[in-house]
């Protein structure tokens, strides 16, 4: 890939050319979404290097057979030609009819590794062997699926920066059974991929001794809410906070707020973050969200163009983190490789 003789620009151009070619070939294919079924129209096949080696060996055998007028040599050569030809069918069939589904991807923090689970289902009654799923140069471990069964495979990719991502084109391929041919398909499965900002402790940024104090300065108190305030249930509220007695009385779900007894909401405010650039602020907010969630606090979050109402629980946490990840960010295509500079 990275031959020294090819300059970076050339490589880039080659890459673009290849991409364009693949796009042209797959122009008829609809975007896959969550699941894809491999029909005849999207399984491609070409000989591998081993395939060309075998062709060369067979040519030599054929020349030998002609030279020695040996019918048995002809027979064996032609038998192998037949086997090679049928390998095309076998290899193609190893991919054909599979259904591949992208499973939900667990969000990660920037800099961590994303693991992308896929499920492959076999419904035609043929066991499948040696399937590999790859994105760019990242390849999964080879996979076998018993007949009428399914198997799961995981690809890992680095999560470079916070944001919301799309998967680049995936490739499912196999060389089974003889390795002389490779059948493959291009997939455009697109699970939702969220990368949260990597948390940064604002206290650390502000430095040393005043850490705790400043951290509490960042919190804005709100008054006017009693400790035992009941409010209607909102999706995402932890079940433990539901006041079942109230439910028994009124038939409506209510939750008890502020079990911590502080009686105030914590607001995590963009403006209050001790940093000037967006990403650091987001990273700090991320840290605050995690900390507040860990403490079991009720908290809200204010971003320049978005406010997350106070709440608590893991769904609330995720809502906050998601807003951080999506903040002023368009979906991008995930690069399969960590960019090298």
């Amino acid at each position, binding site marked *: 890939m990275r031959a020294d003789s090819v300059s970076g620009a050339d490589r880039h151009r080659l890459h673009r050319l290849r991409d364009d070619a693949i796009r042209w070939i797959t122009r008829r294919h609809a975007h896959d979404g969550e699941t894809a079924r491999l029909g005849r129209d999207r399984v491609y096949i070409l000989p591998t290097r081993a395939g060309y080696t075998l062709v060369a060996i067979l040519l030599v055998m054929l020349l030998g057979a002609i030279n*020695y007028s040996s019918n048995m040599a002809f027979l064996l050569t032609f038998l192998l030609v*037949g086997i090679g030809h049928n390998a095309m069918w076998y290899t193609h069939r190893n991919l054909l009819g599979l259904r591949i589904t992208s499973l939900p991807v667990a969000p990660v923090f920037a800099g961590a590794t994303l693991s992308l689970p896929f499920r492959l289902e076999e419904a035609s009654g043929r066991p499948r062997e040696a399937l590999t799923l790859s994105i760019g140069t990242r390849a999964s471990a080879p996979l076998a699926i018993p007949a009428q069964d399914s198997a799961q495979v995981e690809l890992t990719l680095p999560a470079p920066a916070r944001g919301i991502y799309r998967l680049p084109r995936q490739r499912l391929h196999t060389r089974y059974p003889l390795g002389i041919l490779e059948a493959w398909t291009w997939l455009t499965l697109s699970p939702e991929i969220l990368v949260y900002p990597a948390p940064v402790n604002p206290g650390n940024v502000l430095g040393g001794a005043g850490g705790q104090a400043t951290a509490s300065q960042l919190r804005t108190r709100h008054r006017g809410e009693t400790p035992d305030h009941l409010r209607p249930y909102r999706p995402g509220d932890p079940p433990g906070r539901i006041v079942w007695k109230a439910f028994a009385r009124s038939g409506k779900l209510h939750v008890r707020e502020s079990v911590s007894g502080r009686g105030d909401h914590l607001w995590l405010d963009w403006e209050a973050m001790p940093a000037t650039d967006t990403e650091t602020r987001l990273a700090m907010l991320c840290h605050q969200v995690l900390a507040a969630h860990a403490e079991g606090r009720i908290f809200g979050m204010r971003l320049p163009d978005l406010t997350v109402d106070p709440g608590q629980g893991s769904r609330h946490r995720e809502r906050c983190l998601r807003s951080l990840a999506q903040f002023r960010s368009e979906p991008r295509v995930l690069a399969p490789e960590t960019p090298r500079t």
Partner: protein
Amino acid sequence: MNTRANTAAANPDLRGLELALIALPVAALPHIAHQPPWITLLVVLAIAARAWLLSSGRQAPSIGIMALLAVLAGSLTLVQYGTVFGQEAGTALLLIMIAFKLLEARNRRDIVIALFLGYFVVVTTYFFDQSILTAAYSLLATWLLTAALIQVHAERHIERRRLARQAGAMLLHALPFMLVLFLAFPRIQGPLWGDPQREETARTGLSDELNPGDIAELLQDESTALRVEFDAAAPPLRAQYWRALVMTDFDGRRWSTDRNTEVIQPPVTDDTLVHYTATLEPTRVRYLPVLDYPAVLPDGAELHANYQVLRDRRITRRIQYQAAADLTTPPGADDPQLPPAERARALDLPAAAAPRARTKVALWRATHGDDDRALIDAALQRFAAEPYRYTLQPPRLAGDATDQFLFETQAGYCEHYASAFAVLMRAAGIPTRVVTGYQGGSWQTRGEYLRLRNADAHAWNEVWLDGQGWVRVDPTAAIAPERIEQGLPGLARDTDEPIPAFLRRGEGLSWLQSTHLSLEDWRDFARFRWESWVLAFDPERQRELFARLGLDPRDWRSVLIALGTGFGTIGLIALAWVWIRTPRHRRPAADRVLGQLSRRLARHDPTLARAPYEPVDAWSRRVAHAHPELGTTLETFARTYNRQRFGRLTPEQRTADLHQLRGLLRTVPRARPAFAPRRNDASRQRAAN
């Protein structure tokens, strides 16, 4: 979820190595007999070493060691053969390369290369042997190699049984391709380079010269020389003389073949011809044994004045030829006189040769006068009357061979009798020559062909009689008529001679011997079919095959047609097979009737077609609303249909209902085509609405 854990050894790339270590030695096994022992030893050691390393979980030897070993083996081969090219040296090097490749295999590529070369090893075994047994063995080796290849690429351990089945299926599915390519791939006559003479160890049949003892050696040779299939019924054994060489020149002891004889055209004859196809084992000489007397020649052969048939080149591989014989018209039958030069040659006798025989002949001449016929009979009579013996182990002849044989030992076989008879005749002034060839043979009821072994070699005479030509006289027939009537086995019956068991058919054989003989017949049958159907296929036979289809293998368009037809047939059969094997749901009969009704109504009025989502009840009401005259029919139809599809019915009721449905369908008249809007128009209309 069924993600299987990899249970393979440390390096998953080497998963197929185990099987490769079995498959490759199997492929190489036939070479043991043809390679010096040190190569076998080297190969076995390398493979055993790798097997040991693998089983004890160790790594392959380092590259340094391998390089050293490779250089060593290369030099040894060079020392052994003086070259690294050519059949033996090349094969030796190939075997060593594969063994070392296995020994040092580090990744999948190494194993794959070794296995590919394994296929090559299989093909090199055909240098030595092309028997059907070898073919079966190479099928086994190919099967194992393919199984190993599959295992290498399977990425997990596959159960042996499944692997065997998969590899077997791949082989089986490849057979039709093999067949089509074998028949239709354009053949050209080799060689492209070099001299592939050593391809088959030529087994010499009859030699150019007739030395005492030559044929006796052949008589011990059980191997097949010639196999013949007759187009019609085979002529009787005693009429079958397979002529190979004619010998006129005699030096007192040795007869030598006529050379530089004139090439003639086969005579035109009105007699019934015996057509046959012969398969000849390689002889390394040019003559073709043909049934006496040749009337239609094999392709590429010429007839000489002495009726020897010679091919345009030496026979270095098994060949098949078609010819026809006229059993009754001998050479020279139309010539009143033998040309003087010919005559002189056929009478030539060294002055000192056979004095006692000459005296004897002079006596006969005195008795019979000018009657050559009578004189011939007298000589034959002598053989029959005197205690001459037919034996394969005659005493050694010293001094004048002819006299000693005729008057002292009186024991010998065809060669002795033919030679002595010729001397007697020449002494009497009758032009005589010796003909060698085959006579007898065994008729193989299994396969309906005549099998002539080298042991069926025979020698007889031809004497010139004015007006009759070269008349065949077989002196052996006078001593041992059974030899001629029934072939050698007939002879073996009433003699105590140590005749090889294979010549004694039927009687006096132990159970084991006769079983062996019957197995031998089977083997010869299989060999014959293999040879005549598979090995004998050459450019010429391909031309015949193509010609029968109106094609010509030298024309690329013909080849394309043949290959296309062949592959097309395979494709169609494969498609049909897949189609048959694919399970499909047959629509219930009631549904088919429903569809017909809907289509029939749609011909009248496209809006009446039932939409796929429309319940039959609703549809019937809709149609009844539009066409009240159909109301009852449709209502009954819907009721019956629903009962048929969803009710619980006995088979009889089911059949009755179906009948009713079909009856109802028939009551709906077909649309008049002239008025019926075309379907496309209808759908367009609907789209417009």
